[in-house]
């Protein structure tokens, strides 16, 4: 590290920002991997436009990747970046307001030409007009230095050379924060192995950036963030969608059933389809259907045949699956529906998170058609949520919704890899024999779970027909009998409600039991609420928090928990959907904290709201 001084800090929030084609997601990913290997706790938030290559240099085309890393455990990717790497004027303009005064800006001066300034809407060059004086500004000729470093590599066009500049930036940041570089150098070799000249270019750009940090007088200090003291064990970094994919594979193993995924590409769920398509050696069948309807239908057909049937989508696709879920409710077959929520209505903002599909998955079907709903809370928790959703679906022979969102899907965190032997056995039994004398009654229920027998084709003597028409209790024959229909509607409802006895009680985090205000959340707000609660407690206030992973049925102690507190605050990235349910079911005057900005809550804003409610 030469003779430059090293400063020790406890956490940093870095945001990489550039054009959608600048490779910012890749840069962020690599920086995160280096950070993970170093042993910091971390959380990431990739934030990118839906357009693949929005017009270069424009504000809508800016793609960002934020990573928060620390020497202690952290809960969110951070509210505001302490360091912004801006590859062009648009990236600076789109992100500057998030950087607090005194923050660090590292900008690619080569991109600050008249044309780009104009595209970004700058009337004067911010690097020259004094508007950045309250920041630590590092002006780096990233493009020119990259091209210079790559001179003499045969087969690399000038355009390709220019595109290596993200590796220059990565090298510089790796130096600045003492990140281990071996992983990235290996990554470059693997990723670009088929074009050795590109691998060479990126390697040289990376090294040039690193060396620039070391030698340039512009960077007088480098920083160290020590490894975090996390629970002992082996860790990996994982995103929510990868964790869901692995959770589904685990569920297939633990249930001893083949995994069948029916899916249609949709942001931000597609990466589950892509991930699972890689694992054919696990016997996984991925079926890219002609549409969302067929994706759900094929999964249900596979479930009829005895597979673990799964369909994945986001809101605009989930609406199309409603009729299939309704059939699943009538057929009483296990089926998993993963809804990776995004901002809506309609197409909305495809790459941005929201939690506004809760009421849709609960009620968005014709008639009385209850289904269990589970919500994942962190990227790594998605793994266990998938197994739990499968357990409930298989045990109770029902479609189950699992909710995630764009924030969990793409965000990553370190994950203490679970010991496979501690994962639950979720195997289930197929019917093999007649269950009523020498007859088979497909709707004769287990008296405890109310689940019906699952008799798969190929089982001799149990041939039967099921369908969407109302069935007679027990025999499953078509029935229009009024009393029978009333009974069947109630049986289906009781079956789902009864799952409450089979899920954990809601845990409340109330350290000294003296809080009078409860913050109740669900889904991906877990991290921001946790960080906000920490802030509030650090200021000496008392607050309790609880987080719901089960939205239907609710944990059986929820009512009792709610009544324990004078005030209940429900933060949601919607206009109050859980609050509506809580008020309706428990007659509790819950107060909503609602933002639908297509991004996770800022925990500082939330902390202010909690504090205000406590004082109110």
């Amino acid at each position, binding site marked *: 590290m030469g003779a430059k001084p090293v400063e020790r800090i406890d956490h940093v929030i870095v945001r990489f920002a550039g054009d959608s084609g600048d490779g910012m997601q890749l840069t962020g990913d690599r920086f995160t991997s280096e950070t*993970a290997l170093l042993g910091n706790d971390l959380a990431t938030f990739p934030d990118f436009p839906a357009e693949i290559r929005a017009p270069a240099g424009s504000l809508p085309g800016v793609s960002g990747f934020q990573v928060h890393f620390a020497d202690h455990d952290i809960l969110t990717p951070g509210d505001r970046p302490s360091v912004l790497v801006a590859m062009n004027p648009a990236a600076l303009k789109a992100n500057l307001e998030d950087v607090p005064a005194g923050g660090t800006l590292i900008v690619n001066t080569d991109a600050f030409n008249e044309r780009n300034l104009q595209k970004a809407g700058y009337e004067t060059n911010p690097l020259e007009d004094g508007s950045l004086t309250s920041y630590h500004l590092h002006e780096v000729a990233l493009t020119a230095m990259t091209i210079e470093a790559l001179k003499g590599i045969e087969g690399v066009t000038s355009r390709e050379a220019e595109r290596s500049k993200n590796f220059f930036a990565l090298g510089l940041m790796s130096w600045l924060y003492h990140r281990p570089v071996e*992983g990235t150098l290996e990554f470059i070799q693997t990723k670009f192995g088929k074009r050795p000249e590109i691998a060479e270019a990126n390697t040289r750009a990376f090294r040039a950036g690193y060396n620039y940090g070391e030698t340039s007088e512009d960077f007088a200090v480098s920083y160290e963030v020590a490894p975090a003291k*996390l629970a*002992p064990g082996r860790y990996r970094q994982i995103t929510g969608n990868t964790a869901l994919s692995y959770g589904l594979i685990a569920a297939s193993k633990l249930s001893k059933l083949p995994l069948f995924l*029916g899916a249609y590409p949709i942001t931000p769920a597609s990466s589950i389809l892509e991930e699972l398509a890689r694992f054919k*050696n696990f016997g996984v069948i991925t079926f890219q259907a*002609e549409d969302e309807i067929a994706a759900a239908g094929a999964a249900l057909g596979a479930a009829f045949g005895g597979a673990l049937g799964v369909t994945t989508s986001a809101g605009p696709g989930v609406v199309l699956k409603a009729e299939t879920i309704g059939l699943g409710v009538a057929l009483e077959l296990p089926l998993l529906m993963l809804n990776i929520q995004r901002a809506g209505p309609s197409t909305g903002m495809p790459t941005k998170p929201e939690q506004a599909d809760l009421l849709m998955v609960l009620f968005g079907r014709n008639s009385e058609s209850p289904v269990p709903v589970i919500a994942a809370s962190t990227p790594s928790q998605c793994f266990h949520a998938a197994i739990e959703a499968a357990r409930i679906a298989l045990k109770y022979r029902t479609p189950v919704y699992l909710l995630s969102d764009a924030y969990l899907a793409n965000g990553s965190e370190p994950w203490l890899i679970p010991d496979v032997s501690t994962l639950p056995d979720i195997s289930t039994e197929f019917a093999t024999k007649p269950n009523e004398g020498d007859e088979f009654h497909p709707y004769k229920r287990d008296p405890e779970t109310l689940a019906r027998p699952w008799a798969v084709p*190929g089982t001799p003597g149990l041939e039967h027909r099921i*369908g*969407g028409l109302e069935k007679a209790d027990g025999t499953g024959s078509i029935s229009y009998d009024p009393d029978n229909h009333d009974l069947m509607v109630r049986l289906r409802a009781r079956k789902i409600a009864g799952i409450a006895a089979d899920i954990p009680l809601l845990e409340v985090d109330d350290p000294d039991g003296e809080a009078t205000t409860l913050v109740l959340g669900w889904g991906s707000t877990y991290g921001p609420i946790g960080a906000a609660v920490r802030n509030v407690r650090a200021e000496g206030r008392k607050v309790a928090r609880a987080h719901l992973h089960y939205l239907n049925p609710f944990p059986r102690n929820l009512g009792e928990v709610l009544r324990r507190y004078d005030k209940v605050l429900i933060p949601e990235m919607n206009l109050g959907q859980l609050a509506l349910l809580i008020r309706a079911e428990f007659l509790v005057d819950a107060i909503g904290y609602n933002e639908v900005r297509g991004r996770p809550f800022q925990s500082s804003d939330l902390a202010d709201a909690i504090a205000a409610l406590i004082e109110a």
Partner: protein
Amino acid sequence: MSDSNGNLIQLTAKDFKSDQEVRWCPGCGDYAILNAVQGFMPELGIAKENIVFVSGIGCAARFPYYMQTYGMHSIHGRAPAIATGLATSRRDLSVWVVTGDGDALSIGGNHLIHALRRNVNLKILLFNNRIYGLTKGQYSPTSERGKVTKSTPYGSIDQPFNPLSIAIGAEATFVARAIDTDKKELVEVLRAAAEHKGTAIVEILQNCNIYNDGAFDSVREHKENRLYLRAGEPVTWGDKGVRIGPDGSAEIVSADAEGLLVHDPGHPEPSVAFALSRLTWDTVGAVPMGVFRDVERPVYDEAVAEQIRAAKEKQGDGELEALLHAGDTWTIS
């Protein structure tokens, strides 16, 4: 077929009749089809438990309830999609889809064409009565132009679909047509469909005696207007024959004319089968029956199984432990 002890069992039509009361209207063409299918099933030599009938919604969709096999009466138009999931994940099963003209060609049109192009091992029986029966008599996507129905009191202005033209256009590998009451030929076509590897679609002209009675009388009653397609034989009926003209379309000539088309359902190119599908009662006063097209192409579910087999052979059976620990990991002690 044999039971689990290896003893030969001869099933009969009766074995395929379920205990459910058949609830179609008296005189409906569906009875004849049910009868023919139940009579044909024993020929398959497949145990009842390995046969599944999947249907959507409509009169035809009640079919599975009457078969003593596994069955699912599903959602309007979605049967091909549901059956695709089942057939792909359970290659040991014989999966049949029963659908109607509204189910297959209106609300389920997308699923039908994609099942056909994928060539999943499904046998699709499309009961075409050119009307919506279960909803009591609205025009369907195969109803002729000008048809007066409850929803078209001034006559339909829709151009109808030709189901077999669609199937051939959708890359179907097996395309055939039969008539509900023509049991011998219907069973002949079912046999060929069952033997075909991949998706087979059979259009069955079916009379709805309540809402569209007599829709197919031109061939159902007037047998002389049936043009039976026989592989390797010239395409003729009565004193007329078919020749492929210079523009690729089928032209009607005298049965003793030169250059008559010799039927070849296995021709790699679909153009002649398509030209034959354009021959209708309205255009030429005859309706071709039998197998239009029967070609081999990779079967979807086989290809799926092969990819899994190859992956397991190359990488070994997937281990969860190894999966979770793959890639960059680090240890905190």
